[in-house]
Structure formats: C-alpha cells, structure tokens
C-alpha cells in the first residue's frame, strides 16, 4: 500500500503535466504547427546543449528559494503572497550592504549581505503577520498591498536615492556595483576541471547548492523536530492544537518569518550572483512563480527542487521554441498555467482516492482482526 501510494504521488504531477501538454497541443495545432515537432524542439534545445542545461539551473535557483518561501507559509496555513515584495526588499538590503561597505573579507561581507537580505524580507513581513495574528486581517490582502509598496519604494530608492552617480546621464538606472567580497562565488572554477565552460556555466553560483541544502534542512526540520510537529498540528487543526497547549500564534509567526527570510534570498541569484548591482529592471515576478512551484511541490521542501527545475526547463524551452520552431513563447506560458490547473485538480482527486483507500483498509483491519494484537508501529 505504501509503495503504491508513493508511486501515485509521483505519477499524479506527471499525469497533470501530460494533460497540460495535450491541451497546449490543441493550441499549437490551432496556430498551424505540429505539436510533436514543437515539443521535440523544446526538449532537444533544452536538454541536449550544455548552455541550455546550465541556463536551466541558473533559472531554477531563485525558484527554489521562492518555492520554499511560499511552501513554508502554506505549511502553517498562511498564504504568503508577499514573497514578491519581500524579495525586492531583501535584494535591496543585500545590494546596500554590498556596495556601501568596503574592505571586508568575503567570509564576513557575503554572509552579512545574505543576512541583510533575509532580514529585509522578514521586516517586510512583520506588518502583515502582526495584523493577522493580532487583528485577524487576512494576510493575502495585506501582503499583496505590501508588494505594491515594495515595488514603488524600490523604484524610488534605486532611482532617487542610491542611483550609481557614475551612470547619471546614461539610460542605466541602477545602484553602484557591490564589493567583490559581497558577491556570491561562481561555480565556474569548480566545473572547469570537468570540461564545462562558457558564460552560462559561469553564471551558475553557489546559491544553487545553498538552496538545495536549505530544502534538505527544512525537510528534516519539519518532519523530525518538535517545532515541525507543532506546525503540522497547527495547520491540520488549530483548535485541537490550542487545546493541547500549543501556542498557535507563536508557531504561525515563526513559520511566517522563516518564509519571509527565505523570500529575502530570492533575488540574490541575479543581484549578487550575476549582475553585481540592483538594476531598476531586475528580474521580477519570481515570488509569484514561487506560488506555482510550491503548489506543484505540494509544499514539500524536497519536492520544490524538481518543481523549480520544471519551471526552469519550461522557461528555457519557451526561448527555444520561439527561436527554432517560431511558435510564440506565450504558448509555453499557457502550458505552465494549464499544468498548474491540472495539478490542483489531480492532487484533489488523489487526496480523495487515498482517503477512501485508507478508510477501506482500516475497515478491513477491523473486520479481519476482531481483537487488535499489538498492531502498532
């Protein structure tokens, strides 16, 4: 039973992806192209070229952080839609620490920048969570509002306060370049001995292994620690948790801060790992993609990794089909959306199926063994 359940859990998203591809096929047919050719181009372009593979990994990195951030809040029955705004603020704080301090060694400067990013994200989440826990204001509303504020604030800070003075007179609106000691080291030197070279390889940085490590640590933390247990209790029945003496508000606060802290790191892949400055056109929308990633991963920290990879793959594939199959990349955006919808439906069906299976199993046990004989474990 357990093995079969695991298989189903893996098969469900796979089926949803296939379903999404089928629907997208109809659209590809409608614009007069052969879907099989398009998918073939997509797969060939994305998976047979070194630059594509590394580009996928680079795009996956922030999605891991974003997916984890959203998943952590969902785990505590909170909807942190504010990952978007929290990573804007986190990115700015990291850039600020990066360019305003000089002469620190990398072992101090980089961690400081990372902490600043996480701290910025947390500070930005304080108002929504305080309003939620004290006044019951719904965090979906408040975090969305905070996103708008973060967006406007960031434009102001980059354009009017911290704009790199050497760029004035050019169309480039960005902060000064961060100190080398605050930059996240590239994985290029590690990969060079393996014969991997090129700009896409160089782009990949140590935030990818950091993201994977955080995912593994969180998985362990949630399943094995006392706090993780309390999180499960609060999420699955807050009233029963309260009756058991678990401080609901404290648990939810902790998880929201964890979520926001991770959210603060989302933008660093681009800011500290690649560009080295915060441009007014820095990549946006990663926080919202994180919601899709968390959904696909069913809020499982380890599941976030393949889910983020899928979105990285689709993103790269979109560029491929646009260029080589001359299919608008919006088709791939639609594909993403349909996959998400299919996933939601498929998970719901799976949950219902598992529930009836479990019921049936439990009842079989009861009728088969009238007296339970140490059936525990």
């Amino acid at each position, binding site marked *: 039973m357990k093995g079969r359940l695991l298989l189903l859990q893996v098969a469900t998203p796979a089926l949803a992806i296939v379903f999404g591809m089928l629907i997208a096929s109809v659209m590809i047919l409608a614009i007069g192209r052969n879907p099989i050719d398009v998918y073939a181009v997509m797969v060939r372009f994305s998976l047979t070229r070194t630059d594509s593979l590394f580009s996928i990994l680079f795009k996956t990195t922030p999605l891991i952080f974003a997916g984890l951030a959203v998943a952590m809040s969902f785990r505590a029955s909170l909807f942190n839609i504010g990952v978007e705004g929290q990573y804007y603020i986190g990115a700015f704080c990291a850039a600020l620490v990066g360019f305003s301090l000089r002469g620190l060694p990398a072992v101090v400067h980089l961690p400081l920048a990372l902490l600043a990013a996480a701290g910025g994200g947390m500070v930005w989440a304080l108002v929504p969570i305080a309003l939620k826990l004290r006044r019951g204001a719904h965090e979906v509303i408040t975090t969305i509002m905070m996103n708008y504020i973060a967006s406007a604030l960031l434009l102001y800070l980059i354009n009017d306060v911290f704009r790199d003075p050497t760029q004035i007179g050019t169309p480039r609106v960005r902060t000064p370049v961060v100190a080398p000691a605050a930059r996240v080291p590239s994985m290029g030197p590690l990969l060079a001995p393996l014969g991997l070279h090129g700009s896409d390889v160089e782009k990949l940085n140590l935030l990818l292994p950091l993201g994977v490590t955080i995912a593994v640590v969180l998985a362990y933390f949630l399943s094995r620690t006392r706090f993780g247990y309390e999180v499960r209790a609060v999420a699955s029945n807050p009233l029963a948790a309260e009756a058991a*003496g678990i401080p609901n508000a404290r648990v939810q606060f902790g998880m929201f801060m964890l979520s926001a802290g991770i959210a603060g790191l989302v933008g660093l892949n681009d800011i500290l790992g690649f560009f080295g400055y915060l441009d007014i056109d820095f990549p946006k929308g990663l926080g919202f993609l994180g919601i899709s990633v968390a959904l696909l991963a069913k809020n499982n920290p380890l599941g976030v990794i393949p889910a983020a990879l899928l979105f990285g793959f689709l993103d790269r594939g979109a560029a491929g089909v646009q260029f080589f199959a001359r299919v608008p990349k919006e088709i791939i955006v639609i594909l993403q959306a349909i996959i998400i919808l299919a996933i939601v439906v498929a998970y719901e069906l799976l949950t219902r199926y598992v529930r009836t299976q479990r019921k049936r199993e439990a009842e079989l046990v009861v009728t088969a063994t009238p007296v339970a004989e140490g059936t525990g474990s």
Partner: protein
Amino acid sequence: MNDLFIELRHITKRFPGVVANDGVDLAVRTGEIHAIVGENGAGKSTLMRILYGLYQPDQGDIAVKGQTAVIDSPRRALELGIGMVHQHFMLIPVFTVAENVILGSEPASGLGRLRMREARQRVADLCRQYGFILDPGAEVGALSVGEQQRVEIIKVLYRGAELLILDEPTAVLVPQEVEELFHNLRRLKEQGKTIIFISHKLDEVLAISDQVTVLRHGRVVGTVPAARTTKAQLAEMMVGRPVLLELEHPSVTPGQVRLEARRLRVPGGGKRLAVREVSLAVRAGEVYGVAGVEGNGQTELVEALVGLRPIAGGQLLVDGRDVTHATARAIRLLGVAHIPEDRHRRGIALPMAVWENLILGHHTRDEFTHGALLDRPGIQGFVRRRVGDYDIRVADTDAPVLALSGGNQQKVVVAREFSFNPQVLVAAQPTRGLDIGATEFVMRQLLAARSSGMAVLLISANLEEVLSLSDRIAVMYGGEMVAEFARAEATPAELGLYMTGTKRKDEARAG
C-alpha cells in the same frame, strides 16, 4: 390492519469500500410504529435514505402498498406517502410556523398570490387533528426544540405523508419533551399513520414501538415484537455479544478538592455572559456530573476550566492553586486532562497520523524528545502500549486518524488524555456519537479513573449517562447551576424540570 405499507426486499447498497446494506429485508405494516435500531455504521441511515429516494439501491426492490415502486427522489417518496423528519431541523427561524410548513408547496391563487390565511387554517387543522400544541402564527426561532420538532412533523403531514420516518428524534429532547413526542406519535398511530422510528436509545424504543428491527454490519439480525423482547436482548443483537447495561458504581470515599470554580463568569460570543456565577468543587475519587440541554453555557464553562477561554470574573483553582488566568498549557501541566465535547473540533487533528494524535499535548515531554528533535523510538513504544491498552483498532499508526471509526477516534482521545496520570479529568460529552460498545468502553474508563482517585467532571446532555456515572449531579440552565443533587436523590423527571428551566433550586429548597 395486517396489510404491509412498505416492503423492502433484499436491498443491497455498496459504497466504495463498504457494503452499507447487505440483502436487507424489511416489512412495515400500515398503522404500526416500527423501530430500527443498530450501532453507528450499521446501515440505518443508508436504508432510510433509500426509502426516501436519496439513494438508489444496487440490488433489491421496494414495494409500497403491494406495488413495486422506484423511489428516485424525495418528491417521488412524498407522492407515495413517505415523509422524513430529519434529525437536524430544516427550518427558517424568522418564518412563522405556518410559513415554514408550507414552504415548497405554498397554496397560491391563479395569479400566484400566496393564500396565507388558507395556509394558516390548514396548519391549525392539522394540529387539531393530531392533538399537536402549536401556534401557526408563532415565529419558529422563538420555539423550543420540542416545538420545532413538531413543526417538522406537521410539515411532513401537510405534504400528505402516510408513513413518517423519524431519524433519532429524541436525541435533542429532554425527558418531558420525549414524553410529549411519544404522546403525539401514539395519536398519529391511532389515526392510521405508519411510523418508522430510528434510534439507539433502547428504553425509548421499547416504550414506543410495536416492532423492532435490528441491523448489524448492514444486515438484518432480526425483527422482534417490542412486547416480547428486552433491552439486554436488543443490545446483544446490536453488538453481537452480551453487553453490560448497568455499570457497577462501587463506593469510593472522595478525597480532597482538586478542581474548584468560585463564582465563575465566562463570556460567550460578544459581551453576553455565557456562564454566570458558577461555583463547583470536584473531589478526588468522585464523578461530578453536569446535566443540561446543550447551549446553556456548558461549552463555555468547559473551555474556561481548561484555559481555552478567558475568565471574566471569579476564581478557578486546581489543587488549591489559582489558575484563573493561566494558559491551557499551564493548566494541562498541573494534571488536568480534557476530553473535548467535539473531538473533530478540539480533540484530534484528522489529517495527522494516529501516533501524532496520541502524543498531542504530551509532545514536549522528555520521554518524547531529544533536544529539539522528536524521539521516534520512545514515541513508538508509548504509542504501541496505548494502542494495545485501549484496543484501538488500527493496522498502522502512521495512518491518518481520519481513517478510523468514530469510536476508535474517541479511544485515541481517551487514551491520550488518560496518559501520564492526570489528577483531574474534564470530560465533555465523552460518549457523543459513539455506539453501544464504544460507549460502554468510555463509561468504564471514567469509572476506573474515579476509582483510581481522579477527580472527574462529567458534562453531558445524555441524562442516562450522567445518572449512571455521577456521585453528585448539578443541572446547568441559562449559564447557571440551577440545582445540585446527591446521586441517590436524582431522578430523570426531576432533573428534566430543572433542565427546561421549569424549576430552580431556590424554589426546590423552599419546597
């Protein structure tokens, strides 16, 4: 009068994973009161839903007055003269009795104008015909539960039902209201109506019915005339083994006061006080029972006693220590266990595993933790012992608790709350929704706790349960304790008078 009103032949109904009805035969004669009894999950409700057209049987057929019939909707059931009085009332509180009764089949003129006067007249006629005491113009929200039930019955009669199905009609009534209901039912029977009465209260079944059909695991165990059977026999048919209906209540000398409330005031929703100046003291080795119709402040009282609801005034003491403003956690750590009135709300987390539910609230104990980590081997040992000791029927304690039956879920709660030697037990409606077997189990556990010196506060709407377990019995009405009795003094009829607010203790003391 020997013709059959309805005959079910070999009805089988399957749901994914269960056979709810397995070849059920049932014959109900016109003009009789036919009780259907069985434990939870025995298939009573499914059978009635088939009869009322809500479900279609997979096999078997139904004959109404000798004619084979397909009942594919409640509308069709009503056309055949079959009406259902639901356990949960489906009434609109702001409408009058007459308005509620006609809802869905309003008498109207050709132009669609509602003939309210005619409706009211017809409702009044029905009440007179069947001897129902009910004012057609009264607003339903202001009526008592018993009166609301009468409205439900009139509703069904208004639609021309010849056969009335009553699903657990006495569950919500106090003894006096049960008497009135039975009076009404007998009157209906005299007028030629047929009644199917679903219940698991055996005393009532024996008092009102002509025939009793017992279901177990979806099958008919037998149909017996009520006059020629006993409670014990019916219970044995239901459970499949002899059941002890009268629990031994050995005398225990009470010890010191463990739980004490002094003039406790507890807010309900908003500013209104749900508990007004309640004082009580529960001693070690006694069961202190609180009887009362639900919604008279019991929920709020219990929540206040275990630290889940702020106390507006008065004092709460556990072992002489003031815990009026203590947290739920602090009160729990002083040895106060709590069986919540609604296990799905406060007792268990349904999606969590059985083992996780068994340690809820104990999960911070040293034996279950290694620093910040949970100590799985330590927990496993505890869980295995609890599952064995309390006979929780589960193959895999990693399965979510929602896979268990209601009785087994309650066993999880009881097993957990009885762990680590609590000194005080606050048990709210501990047998609600449980079948005879599980009820017997829980009641035994409560008495065992009492014998071992625990102070047990039992809050229950089930009078029989309060009477058979308690050493002292208080009645709660309107947020106050209106009476207190010693075990020997309390009778159901007397308690009923206090539960309905007919009598108060000051009058009782005077008289």
